[in-house]
């Protein structure tokens, strides 16, 4: 019951909560400031123009002031030639940027994917433009960043789960080239020079003070937007928009600045498990076996050695892992008897990798249980013809079979997607689906240790949950295998949705210009519709009104 005296407080709190969620965007700020300044300038000019006849008439009434005015004008014009020369900004040409960026020694950049922060890179180069060393931090949200370091053909990857892996990787130039702002600027120039792209340079915006360069490729559906600092002439940001819906960008944070040496040789947390593939031979030699046979055989031998407590042999087959990886981290998965080694399934990757699901018995709390973990089997980097079992074991059925479990049930509007219901607890979701791929809200990312009141939790298999105060308030799916009982789902046309669900909907336009929202409030359903091909790209289920 709300009493008369309390209602003001209730509404005031409501207004404060809504207001705290409001933020302007850079685009909005820039648009408003630019247009306002222009309007302001115009009105100033108008006013000055309006004043002019009066001043002129006052001056020209007197013959003496006529002569004085003429003298002032002559002196003024003479002076203004030099003054204007100094005040007028020199015309910018893209060649100045190429010149400013030439001879890179180091850079520090932030990459973006679909307008969200992704990786951060620090790289150093020698005088010939060859990379000396780099550091990459990949934001993962749940774990904290993955860190990759590379120097002298040795790559160290640190997984925040407490695993460090050292391997030999030769030429990393192609990996880094995509993020190198000097190369990117050069390529753009070459495309423009060859007539494959059109470049349009705009004046510095009054708000941010940066020069905007629009580049439109003629040979592919790519639009690039570059921001250039008019003082340093350096590119500060490059955004690539593919076919209007795919975005990748880099932001230059530092260029040719000295990078702290500790960035390239950080101290890892105490207790980090090191998997060393450089100072020792690891894995199993392929010999005459096919890739698939080698993958199966590597897993079989690794499990047999583990089962026999032969940690030297097992460690070698697990890619150079120390015993503690198997005795501590995966102690609950030590086999006592192998039932089956599954068929190897290739994983799309730049190097050969297979997944092999195995079934075997383990002893757990004095009881024998059957488990079916999936092992990853990649080729060893820097040791041709050898295969090893990766340390990342998908050891619950959940991670592998989550998709199967989810799609066993249909989408029920206002209620559930498969087994996942609105209002179920966040903990039940985690128990069922395992670790989320990401936890985020807006542009912020979170971890399970640091959760806000409301957030999105995304899992593999194209399902995500809106969690508010620890329980599910919305479920989103974006893969075609999620279906309603009528068989409709992601990928179907907007028209078929309207035919099936009726015309009691309304449409909201998304600010991004990529999609529209087809909303059935009474059914608790929102369909994200691709703006151009008008098909469903995501379905959101929430409580109906």
């Amino acid at each position, binding site marked *: 019951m709300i009493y008369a005296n309390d209602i003001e407080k209730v509404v005031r709190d409501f207004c404060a*909560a809504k207001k705290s969620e409001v933020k302007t965007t850079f685009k909005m700020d820039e648009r408003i400031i630019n247009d306002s300044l222009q309007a302001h300038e115009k009105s100033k000019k108008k006013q000055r123009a309006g004043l002019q006849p009066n001043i002129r008439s006052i001056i020209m009434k007197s013959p003496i002031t006529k002569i004085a005015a003429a003298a002032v004008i002559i002196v003024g014009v003479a002076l203004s030639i030099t003054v204007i020369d100094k005040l007028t900004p020199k015309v910018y040409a893209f060649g100045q940027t190429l010149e400013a960026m030439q001879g890179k020694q180091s850079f520090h950049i932030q990459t973006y994917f679909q307008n969200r922060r992704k990786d951060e890179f620090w790289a150093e180069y020698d005088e010939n433009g060859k990379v000396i060393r780099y550091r990459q931090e990949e934001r993962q949200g749940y774990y904290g960043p993955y860190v990759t370091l590379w120097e002298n053909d040795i790559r160290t990857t640190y997984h925040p789960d407490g695993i460090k892996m050292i391997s030999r990787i030769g030429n990393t130039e192609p990996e880094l080239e995509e993020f190198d702002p000097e190369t990117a600027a050069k390529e753009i120039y070459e495309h423009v020079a060859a007539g494959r792209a059109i470049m349009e340079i705009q004046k510095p915006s009054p708000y941010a003070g940066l020069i905007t360069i629009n580049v439109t490729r003629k040979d592919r559906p790519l639009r690039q937007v570059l921001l250039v600092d008019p003082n340093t002439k350096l590119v500060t940001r490059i955004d690539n928009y593919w076919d209007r819906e795919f975005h990748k960008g880099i932001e230059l944070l530092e260029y040719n600045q000295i990078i702290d040496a500790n960035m390239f040789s950080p101290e890892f947390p105490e207790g980090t498990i090191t998997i060393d593939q450089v100072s020792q031979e690891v894995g199993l030699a392929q010999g005459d076996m096919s890739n698939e046979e080698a993958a199966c055989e590597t897993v079989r031998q690794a499990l047999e050695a583990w089962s026999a407590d032969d940690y030297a042999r097992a460690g070698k087959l697990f890619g150079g892992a120390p015993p503690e990886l198997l005795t501590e981290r995966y102690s609950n998965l030590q086999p006592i008897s192998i039932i089956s080694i599954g068929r190897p399934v290739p994983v799309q990757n730049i190097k050969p990798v297979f997944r092999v699901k195995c079934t075997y018995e383990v002893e757990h709390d004095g009881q024998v249980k059957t488990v079916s973990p999936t092992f990853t089997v990649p080729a060893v980097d820097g040791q041709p013809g050898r295969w090893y079992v990766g340390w990342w074991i998908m050891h619950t059925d959940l991670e592998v079979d989550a998709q199967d479990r989810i799609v066993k049930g249909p989408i029920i509007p206002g209620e559930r997607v498969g087994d996942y219901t609105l209002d179920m607890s966040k903990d039940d979701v985690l128990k069922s689906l395992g670790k989320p791929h990401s936890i985020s809200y807006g542009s912020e990312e979170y971890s399970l240790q640091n959760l806000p009141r409301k957030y999105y939790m995304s899992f593999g298999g194209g399902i995500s949950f809106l969690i508010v105060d620890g329980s599910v308030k919305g479920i989103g799916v974006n893969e075609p295998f999620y279906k309603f009982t009528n068989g409709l789902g992601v990928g179907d046309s907007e028209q078929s949705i309207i035919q099936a669900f009726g015309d009691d909907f309304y449409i909201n336009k998304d600010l991004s210009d990529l999609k529209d929202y087809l909303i059935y409030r009474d059914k608790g359903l929102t369909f994200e519709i691709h703006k151009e091909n008008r098909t469903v790209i995501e379905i959101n289920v929430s409580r109906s009104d």
Partner: protein
Amino acid sequence: MLEDKLLVWKLKRGSSDALRHIYEKYKKDLLALAIALSNDRGAAEDVVHDVFVSFAQYAEKLQLRTSLKSYLLSCIANRVRNIHREKCQQASRLDAAETIGSDSDGPEQMAIASEELQRVGRAMFQLSYEQREVIILHLQGGMRFRAIARSQGVSINTIQSRYRYGLNKLRSLLNGEAEK
């Protein structure tokens, strides 16, 4: 207040920095009010844009009889009210759905708010536009009744009545005693 007077003084003398400063200072208040009144983020951004551009255009003729913040908030409210009237006149089905009480963020976004906030939000949109407007201007915008009355060209008694009736109705709705 002194700072605002100085900013307006500078602006009237052509200072672009003053214009930027005013925008930075009040942009969040303006956008929040526009969203609260229009319930449409896209439309709200346009309203803030139009109001601020117009403010910049006529800055040199500006004669403030109230605080700068109240003046800008009134401009936002007036602009949203005009749009609301236009929409009502069009009376298209879609517009009607939006003004009756839909949250333009859609059901998914509605779920973001806690149950309590949702209840209040829904109830707010069952008030008449005039009642909702005065409640938001007073409780969110911090505007005095006198300033609201002046900006709308109505008596202060009218504004206070709208506020009182609005809050009473809101309380009834939230307590589940609303007349059907």
